[in-house]
Structure formats: structure tokens, C-alpha cells
């Protein structure tokens, strides 16, 4: 057997490597490397032509230096020279250097490809091998262009050596993966399939990989590979352990080839009956062999044997058509569940998970429940426990759900932090899916919150509320249970949320019991109030106003609370607003109005569980296609999430019957038809427009209002005698949410009220807006709210248009305003020091990157106002950066889905001339342009 002595071949290289290893410090190493680099450079530049050996040695040293992590910026040419050497060792080093330091220098690529071409044509199997390995390692498009036509010929030529065939097959595979369009199918494909019959098992091994990949994309063309693969597999599995000589590994015949053949078969459905019989025999043989006593005690033997077994089971599961095999596979895996090898236990759990979803083997999998539960409790490796959780989830059905959920809950108490959230989601889904008795469901979710409150996401507690609201048989129980749970001295904030919501809706169901009288309920909730975060407090305030309606006797107590300074003057706008509004509502509204506004929430529409959507999302890449749907689902749910309904949304939930009389109420998104001709004369244009896509001219004055919103997010966007449109919006990175409030200023209802968001064709790809239609009827004096979810995909210039059509007292109204969603809303401020600022400023000195505007001041030139506007614009205001203190500079990053764009700005006021000069520098011209336009209009 061959053996090589240390560093034979190149003495200089061995010495250099030893030197590096002896360096005591990083500095010494760098010094030694620099010395060597200087030496090599001088040799390469020297007058004396270097012989092949020296060139090889120096190139190899450069490669070693590169692999240590240092940059190499020369030597490529010398490496390319080595390719044309006639000595194997020199050629090998040249190819290795090219493969490792692949360089896109087009001049070199041509030279490299030329050398490869010569070697491929050389008929020297060693050189051909080197060339093919280089193509397979680099796999660039240029190489595919040059060789994709040539390699199939090498592969199927009758006189090609076996080892070259192996390399050619995989080389072609690489090119097909990187540039499938450049690999032409042709006569060679049928001949490649027949390589499955080749005498040389190494050729079969390589060819099987190629065929599998090609068959995935072109199943029809490679269909004949199925019967060939089955006969090959059959010959392997029935051979005695010595038949295959070289290819027997620890008494297992050709394990890797068997695995590859079994994978190839997984590209196809079960084959025709004749072939199928042989395949079933093969699979049975593999299952039988697993039961035989091992031929060796070595782990290599069992691993190789089981690699084939697991792949066979994958194929059985893939076909999912032979109950007998499925049950045998399940029993085999069941044995592994208690094997002493952790690897086998892990793999058995993983594989059984897929078996659980087959109708034929589901029951067989269930028999192992005790073992799996035991694994959850005793396994030392967290990844094994994770697989046990997955399997329990997969095998769960109505018969064993209570047991599995109970076990998961008890495991949750000690579970690793990394997998808690996933377990919480799984428990929540199982509890909902298999709940016969919804009191069990409520108990389970409250337990979840108690045990792992921090890992209970919004989706989970939203869901429990949706279910309680939709099922009146469980409401009383839910109220009683949350009331009891809230008695605990320390309870999780999520419990306060659920408790607050449920008592606000259904507290009356338990108020008859003196132990949970209205005042006691209120005091219990309010005792948690001060420990909670702002969103929870906001929710509790809504609960309180609901209490005012449910329990008139506690109204004074609640009014006192709302009236206190800590509410009415709360620093948080949302809390303050709720306190003010609710206090006012409780004082001015009659009992009837209160009862209408604060009535019980209507049932939620049935939709896919948001928790399931979340779990799918967590599951990652395997369900990428679902991801978009999941996101959409989530965004809908968040809007529709069970925030207790304040006054305005309740109005939405009680559609006026008159809307339905028109037959349009159910389809609020339908374009409003033209009104009867009794309309006012000023509406002639609208009378003849028959489609909602015809947009009314922008409302007068809206341009000015639009500009006002560039530096702020809240306020009134539009107002006329009939309608007021208010906005409240928030932005974070490339996402935003805008609340649009439509106020009916009249005492008559608006009918067919249809706001539409319109993005021009230019804008559409760059800005995503999502919203739900609002109720088509707006009562006189009422306000309805619409939420728009915003995603900035790429930078944009235009603004979307909000078009509102509605009928008011028989006349058709049409209003269009620009919606102030502007590019600067996606600014994130960036702080930086003066030096950094000017360094970046200089980097963006390309003329296209800078946009400048000199303009006259439209407003008084007040420093503080200007500062506030720049901050409102979204960039950071950088103090003490500009040498002239009168100037303003700012910096920030525009976040879009596709990219982030750094922006620098400088505003130079000239008080005497009452002028400004504004300069914007960003990496993108359109962005500089748009930001400059928007900001110039502000001063």
C-alpha cells in the first residue's frame, strides 16, 4: 500500500510551512509571510526564466498563504502557465490554484479554458481527469458555455476510461446545476441511462447521481432508468457479502450505490406491476437483513446497513401504497426507538414522523407512544427530544390528544428555551384541533400561559379569544376560569390580556356569584394594571368601558380611575386618548347608546388558524411556497385581532339594513353604480363615469395638505362639508401601517361608501398596500377606520391616490386625495461623527449621486423649526458636524425590501437672501432626486 513521507516533493515548501508553524505570534507570522511574498514576487519578475519545478513550488506557497487567510493578488499567470506543463505534478498544482482562487478575470478565463480544452483532447486519462475536476470545482457559466457540449461526448464515448467517465458524469452534473440551459439534451441521454448497467460500480455510482438530478427535471426522458435501477439494486441486495469485492464495505454490499439507487427511485411513482414485484422483493430483502444477526460488531457495519434501510423506508413512505411494507417499516423503526445508539434513536423518531401521516401506518406508529414520551423525558441530546416532540405532534389524533397534550405541557416546564415557542404553538394547535370539550381547550391554553407565558405569541392568545367568542357554550366557563387564574399573586401579562378581554365581554356571566361581583372583578383586574405594558393597559381601559356598560353600579368607580391624572394626563398618547374618550363616552352617552356601542363582539369569521400559519412559517425552507400566504394571513389577523372594540369599530359591526336593500351591502368592494340623475349639476362628470377606476381630479388644497404630512405622521388630510379624513401612521424600516379615519360630518348616513387605494403602474411594483374594505354604510356623525399595511419594496417617487366614492342623500360623491406615503417615511436615522460624515460624503461624489436645489424660503427661517422638520423628515440631525454652525446636516438609511440606501443631506440657509441650498447625496440618483424634492417643499 502506498504511503507518502512528510512533505516529499517540495523541500522549500516544507521548510516554509515549518517556519510558519514555529512563529510565536501573529505578527511574526505576517512578517514571515511578507518576506516570502517579496521573495516570490522577485522570482516571478526576475530576468531568469523559472523552471517548472520552481514555478510549481512558488505557486504552491502562494496557495498555502491564501489558505491561511491572506489575500493573494499575483501569481495567477504563473499558475495558468503550469496548466500547460507536461508534468502531472506541475499541472496538478496549477489546477488546484485555479480551483481554489477562482478569478473572474476574463483574460485568464480564456487562457484557462484553452488549457482545459487541450487536456480534454489529450486522451491522457490523468490530464483529462484534472481538467474535469477543475470544471467540476469552478462550474462557472463561462466554463459551461465552453464545455457543456463537449463533456457528454466524453461521457458516452466507447473508449473513455472508467475513471474519466466517473469524473465526466459528475462534471456534467455540476454544469447542469449551475447552467441547466446550456446543457443540451440529446442522443447521449439514453446512453447515460444505460450506464446503470455498467460493469464498473464506480461509474454506476457517479452516473446514478447525474441521472437522479436530470430525472427530477425531465422525468419522461429518463423513465427507463426505473427498471434498470431496480435490477441493479436487486443484484446488489441479493449478492453475498463478498461478491462485490472492492465495493463491499464492512460486509455490506455497495451501501452508497444502494442509497443512490433508492433515491433515484424516489423521483418516480411506484413502477409497473412487473418491475414493482422485483422492487418489493428488494425492499423486503433489505427489511429482512435488518433482522439478521450482524456480521460484524463494528459500528461501520451497522451504519452502512442502516443507511440502506432508512433509504428503503423513505422509498416505502414515498410510494405509500404497500400497507404490508409500511407496517414492517414501522415495526423496524420501533425497535430502533430503544436502541443504544443515539443516532439510530434520532433517525427512527425522524423517519416515524413521516410514517405517522400515512393512513396505513398511522395506527402502527401510535403503538409506540409510551416509548416516545419516555424519550422526551430521558434523552440527553436536545435535538433528539425535539424529534420526539415532532413525532408526538404527528401521531396525535382524537384518541390520544389529552395524553399527548398533557405530556407536552409537563415537558414544557423543563424544556430547552430554544424549542419552547414551537412546543407552545404545537400544544395550542392540538388543543384546538382535537377539543371535544372546549373547557379542556380553555384550561390547556391558560396552562400554557402559566407555564410558558413568555413564549406564548400574540397568535395564541388571539386564537383563544376568537374561539371563546365564537362558542357561547364555553363563555361562562372561560370567564370563571380566567377569574380564578387571575387570583394568583403573580400572573403573566398574557393572562392579564386574555383575562381582561374575556371579563370585558363575559364578566356578567359570573357576576351573580358574590365572590366574583362586578367590583371584585374590576379591582382584581385593576390590581394588575400598573404592572403591565402600555398595550395591555390600553386593552384594560377598553375592558373598563365595557364594564361601564355591563355593570352600571361600578360606573362611578371606573370614572374615578379614568379621571385620575395617571390616565387623563398619561404621557402615552394612546392611553391618554382612550382615557379621555372613554370618560367622555361614559358621561355623555345614554344607556342605550352605550349598550349599542359597547355590545358584545360579533363572532369572528372562520379562517385558517393563525397559529398554524405561524408554525408553518417557523418550519422554514421546506414550506417556502406557503410563506407568502402565511404572511398575508398574519397581517389580516393582526388587524382583525381581538382588540376590544372601541366605539368606532362597533359602529362598523352593525351594518344598517338599508345598505342591504340596495343589494350591494355584501360586496362593499364593488364599484358604486352611477347614481340616479337627480344628482346636483356639479356631478355631471361622475354621472357618466361607470367604473371606479376613473378617478376624480384631486381635491383642491390636497397638495398642500400632502406636503404637510411629509414631516409628520398624524393629522387631518382632507376636510369638506361632508367628510373629514384623518390619518395616523407609523413606520418601521420598510414597513408601515396607516390608520385612515373617515368621519361623516353630516347627520345623514353615507351609503355605498367605498374608499379605494390606487397605485399607478409605475408605483405598483415598488409599494405594496394592503387593506380590507370598510363597511359600506357610515352613519351620520360616525367615524369608521381603515387600516392600510404598507411595504416599501423599492424606492418610489409618486404617491398613491385615495379615491372615495359614496352616496349622500341621493347624490354621488367622489373625492380623491394623494395619500402621504412618501419615500422618506422609510428613513431610519443614523448617528455619525463629523469625520465619518465627510468621508462618506466624499465617497458619494459621483455627479449622479448628488442632487442640489437652491430655493427661496417660503416660511420664516427659524432654526428650531428647521431642526424639527429635518428630524420629522426621518433622518438623524447631526450636531457639530458641519464646520459652519448655521448649516444643518443629516444622515439616514432608506429601508426598502430589496435594498438599503444610505442618504446624507446638508441644508445651508442664507438669512440675508432668504434662500436655502439643499444638497442630497445617496447611492441612487432617483432617491436623491425624490428626497430633495420632498424636503425642499418644507422650508
Amino acid at each position: 500500500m502506498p504511503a507518502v513521507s512528510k512533505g516529499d516533493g517540495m523541500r522549500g515548501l516544507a521548510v516554509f510551512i515549518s517556519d510558519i508553524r514555529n512563529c510565536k505570534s501573529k505578527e511574526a507570522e505576517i512578517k514571515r509571510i511578507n518576506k516570502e511574498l517579496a521573495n516570490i514576487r522577485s522570482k516571478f519578475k526576475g530576468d531568469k526564466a523559472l523552471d517548472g519545478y520552481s514555478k510549481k513550488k512558488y505557486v504552491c506557497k502562494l496557495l498555502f498563504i491564501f489558505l491561511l487567510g491572506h489575500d493573494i493578488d499575483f501569481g495567477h499567470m504563473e499558475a495558468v502557465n503550469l496548466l500547460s506543463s507536461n508534468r502531472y505534478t506541475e499541472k496538478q498544482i496549477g489546477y488546484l490554484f485555479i480551483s481554489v482562487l477562482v478569478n473572474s478575470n476574463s483574460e485568464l478565463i480564456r487562457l484557462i479554458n484553452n488549457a482545459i480544452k487541450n487536456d480534454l483532447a489529450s486522451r491522457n486519462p490523468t490530464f483529462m481527469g484534472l481538467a474535469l475536476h477543475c470544471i467540476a470545482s469552478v462550474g462557472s457559466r463561462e466554463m459551461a458555455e465552453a464545455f457543456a457540449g463537449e463533456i457528454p461526448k466524453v461521457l458516452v464515448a466507447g473508449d473513455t476510461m472508467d475513471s474519466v467517465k466517473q469524473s465526466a458524469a459528475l462534471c456534467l452534473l455540476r454544469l447542469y446545476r449551475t447552467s441547466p440551459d446550456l446543457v443540451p439534451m440529446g442522443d447521449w441521454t439514453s446512453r447515460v441511462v444505460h450506464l446503470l448497467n455498467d460493469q464498473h460500480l464506480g461509474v454506476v455510482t457517479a452516473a446514478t447521481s447525474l441521472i437522479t438530478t436530470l430525472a427530477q427535471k425531465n422525468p419522461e426522458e429518463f423513465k427507463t432508468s426505473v427498471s434498470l435501477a431496480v435490477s441493479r439494486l436487486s443484484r446488489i441486495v441479493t449478492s453475498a457479502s463478498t461478491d462485490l469485492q472492492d465495493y463491499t464495505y464492512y460486509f455490506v454490499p455497495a451501501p452508497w450505490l444502494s442509497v443512490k439507487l433508492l433515491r433515484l427511485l424516489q423521483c418516480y411513482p411506484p413502477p409497473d406491476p412487473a418491475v414493482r414485484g422485483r422492487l418489493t422483493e428488494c425492499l423486503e430483502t433489505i427489511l429482512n437483513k435488518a433482522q439478521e444477526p450482524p456480521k460484524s460488531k463494528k459500528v461501520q457495519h451497522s451504519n452502512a446497513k442502516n443507511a440502506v434501510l432508512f433509504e428503503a423506508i423513505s422509498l416505502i413512505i414515498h410510494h405509500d401504497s404497500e400497507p404490508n411494507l409500511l407496517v414492517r417499516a414501522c415495526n423496524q423503526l420501533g425497535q430502533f426507538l430503544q436502541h443504544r445508539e443515539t443516532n439510530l434513536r434520532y433517525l427512527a423518531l425522524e423517519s416515524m414522523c413521516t410514517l405517522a401521516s400515512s393512513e396505513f401506518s398511522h395506527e402502527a406508529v401510535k403503538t409506540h407512544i409510551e416509548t416516545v414520551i419516555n424519550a422526551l423525558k430521558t434523552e440527553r441530546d436536545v435535538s433528539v427530544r425535539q424529534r420526539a416532540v415532532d413525532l408526538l405532534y404527528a401521531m396525535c389524533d382524537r384518541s390520544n390528544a389529552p395524553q399527548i397534550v398533557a405530556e407536552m405541557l409537563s415537558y414544557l416546564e423543563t424544556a430547552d428555551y430554544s424549542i419552547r415557542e414551537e412546543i407552545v404553538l404545537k400544544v395550542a394547535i392540538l388543543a384546538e384541533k382535537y377539543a371535544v370539550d372546549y373547557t379542556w381547550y380553555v384550561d390547556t391554553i391558560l396552562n400554557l400561559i402559566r407555564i410558558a407565558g413568555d413564549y406564548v405569541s400574540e397568535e395564541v392568545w388571539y386564537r383563544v379569544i376568537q374561539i371563546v367568542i365564537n362558542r357561547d357554550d364555553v363563555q361562562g366557563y372561560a370567564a370563571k376560569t380566567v377569574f380564578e387564574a387571575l387570583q394568583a399573586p403573580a400572573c403573566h401579562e398574557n393572562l392579564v390580556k386574555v383575562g381582561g378581554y374575556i371579563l370585558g365581554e363575559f364578566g356578567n356571566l359570573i357576576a351573580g356569584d358574590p365572590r366574583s361581583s362586578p367590583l371584585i372583578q374590576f379591582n382584581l383586574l385593576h390590581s394588575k394594571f400598573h404592572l403591565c405594558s402600555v398595550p395591555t393597559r390600553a386593552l384594560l381601559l377598553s375592558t373598563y368601558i365595557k364594564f361601564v356598560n355591563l355593570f352600571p353600579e361600578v360606573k362611578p368607580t371606573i370614572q374615578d380611575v379614568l379621571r385620575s391624572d395617571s390616565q387623563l394626563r398619561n404621557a402615552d398618547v394612546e392611553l391618554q386618548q382612550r382615557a379621555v374618550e372613554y370618560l367622555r363616552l361614559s358621561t355623555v352617552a345614554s344607556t342605550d347608546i352605550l349598550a349599542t356601542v359597547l355590545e358584545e363582539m360579533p363572532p369572528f369569521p372562520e379562517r385558517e388558524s393563525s397559529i398554524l400559519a405561524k408554525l408553518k412559517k417557523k418550519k422554514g425552507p421546506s414550506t417556502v411556497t406557503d410563506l407568502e400566504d402565511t404572511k398575508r394571513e398574519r397581517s389580516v389577523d393582526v388587524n382583525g385581532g381581538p382588540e376590544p372594540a372601541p366605539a368606532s369599530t362597533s359602529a362598523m359591526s352593525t351594518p344598517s339594513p338599508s345598505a342591504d336593500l340596495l343589494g350591494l351591502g355584501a360586496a362593499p368592494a364593488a364599484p358604486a353604480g352611477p347614481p340616479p340623475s337627480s344628482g346636483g349639476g356639479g356631478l355631471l362628470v361622475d354621472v357618466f363615469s361607470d367604473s371606479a377606476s376613473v378617478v376624480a381630479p384631486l381635491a383642491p388644497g390636497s397638495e398642500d395638505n400632502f406636503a404637510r404630512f411629509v414631516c409628520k405622521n398624524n393629522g387631518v388630510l382632507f376636510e369638506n362639508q361632508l367628510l373629514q379624513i384623518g390619518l395616523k401612521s407609523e413606520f418601521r424600516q420598510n414597513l408601515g401601517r396607516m390608520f385612515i379615519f373617515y368621519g361623516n360630518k353630516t347627520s345623514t348616513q353615507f351609503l355605498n361608501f367605498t374608499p379605494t387605494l390606487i397605485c399607478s403602474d409605475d408605483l405598483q411594483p415598488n409599494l405594496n398596500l394592503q387593506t380590507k374594505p370598510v363597511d359600506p354604510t357610515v352613519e351620520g356623525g360616525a367615524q369608521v377606520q381603515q387600516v392600510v399595511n404598507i411595504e416599501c419594496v423599492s424606492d418610489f417617487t409618486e404617491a398613491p391616490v385615495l379615491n372615495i366614492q359614496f352616496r349622500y342623500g341621493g347624490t354621488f360623491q367622489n373625492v380623491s386625495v394623494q395619500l402621504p406615503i412618501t419615500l422618506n417615511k422609510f428613513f431610519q436615522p443614523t448617528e455619525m461623527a463629523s469625520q465619518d460624515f465627510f468621508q462618506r460624503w466624499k465617497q458619494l461624489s459621483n455627479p449622479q449621486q448628488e442632487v442640489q436645489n437652491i430655493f427661496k424660503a417660503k416660511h420664516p427661517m427659524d432654526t428650531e423649526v428647521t431642526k424639527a422638520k429635518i428630524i420629522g423628515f426621518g433622518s438623524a440631525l447631526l450636531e457639530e458636524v458641519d464646520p459652519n454652525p448655521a448649516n444643518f446636516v443629516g444622515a439616514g438609511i432608506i429601508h426598502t425590501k430589496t435594498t438599503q440606501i444610505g442618504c446624507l443631506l446638508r441644508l445651508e440657509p442664507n438669512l440675508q437672501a432668504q434662500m436655502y441650498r439643499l444638497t442630497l447625496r445617496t447611492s441612487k440618483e432617483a432617491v436623491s432626486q425624490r428626497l430633495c424634492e420632498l424636503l425642499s417643499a418644507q422650508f
Partner: protein
Amino acid sequence: MRLKRLGELCKRREGLEIRFILIQNRAGKTRLAKWYMQFDDDEKQKLIEEVHAVVTVRDAKHTNFVEFRNFKIIYRRYAGLYFCICVDVNDNNLAYLEAIHNFVEVLNEYFHNVCELDLVFNFYKVYTVVDEMFLAGEIRETSQTKVLKQLLMLQSLE
């Protein structure tokens, strides 16, 4: 119904291959890195560090498999060296675990009781061994006899 499942499967199996092979010592020094997917240099360095971090904390009671980003690492420790192969999550764990051992047995034969230093001083030969056994992210040759015969032949050309 079959057709649909076939379609799903193809999606699942897409890009099935070895992503990289790493040999590292306990201190995290790389002794071999062979990449079968395009990464830039920074990304490679990050991957090397991450693999070292996830693999070295595990002990003999753990499995030889670790989930890693969207892939998994199949690894085996020999004295002070970790041999790691990064593959697709659906790939066959035990087949790669034994592919590592097969590779190590070849190295052992070729270098006559291989030790870490052999891999340092003969780094350019280790690449040749790898290419004989793995190519384009696939297993190329599994017969130790055939691989060693070929290596011996190449050795004689020096």
C-alpha cells in the same frame, strides 16, 4: 394525485448535494475546506466559525448530526480532528457518516497512519484524495482499493 406528489418531491429534492467538507482541529484551525457551493470569502470564514462552535460543544452521547442553518452537518471526530460534511436536511445521515469514515480510512492508508501534520504539510495532496472520492458535491468513488490504486499511480508520476 401521484403526479402532484411527484412534483412536491422534486421540489423537496432540488439541489441535493454536499455543500462543503471541512476538517478542523479542536482549536478551530481549518485543515481542509472544500466548497461545493458559491460563497464569498467572508461567508466562508463565518461558516467555518459557526461549524466549529456547534460541533465542538457536543459529546459522545450526542448524535453525529446537527441542524445548521437550513442544512445539517454530519460529523465525526477522530482524535483532535473534526470531519464535517454539510448536506441538505433530507439527505441520508448514515450514508454520509460512513462516507467520512471511508475517506478517513483512505487517508490513513495513503499517509500511513495519518496525523494532523500530514494534512498540513501535504495539503495539496489532500485535495487530490478528496476529488477522487467526492466530486461536484456527490460521492464519486467508494472503493478504497480503487482510490488507493489511482493515488499510487499519480504518486508515481511525481
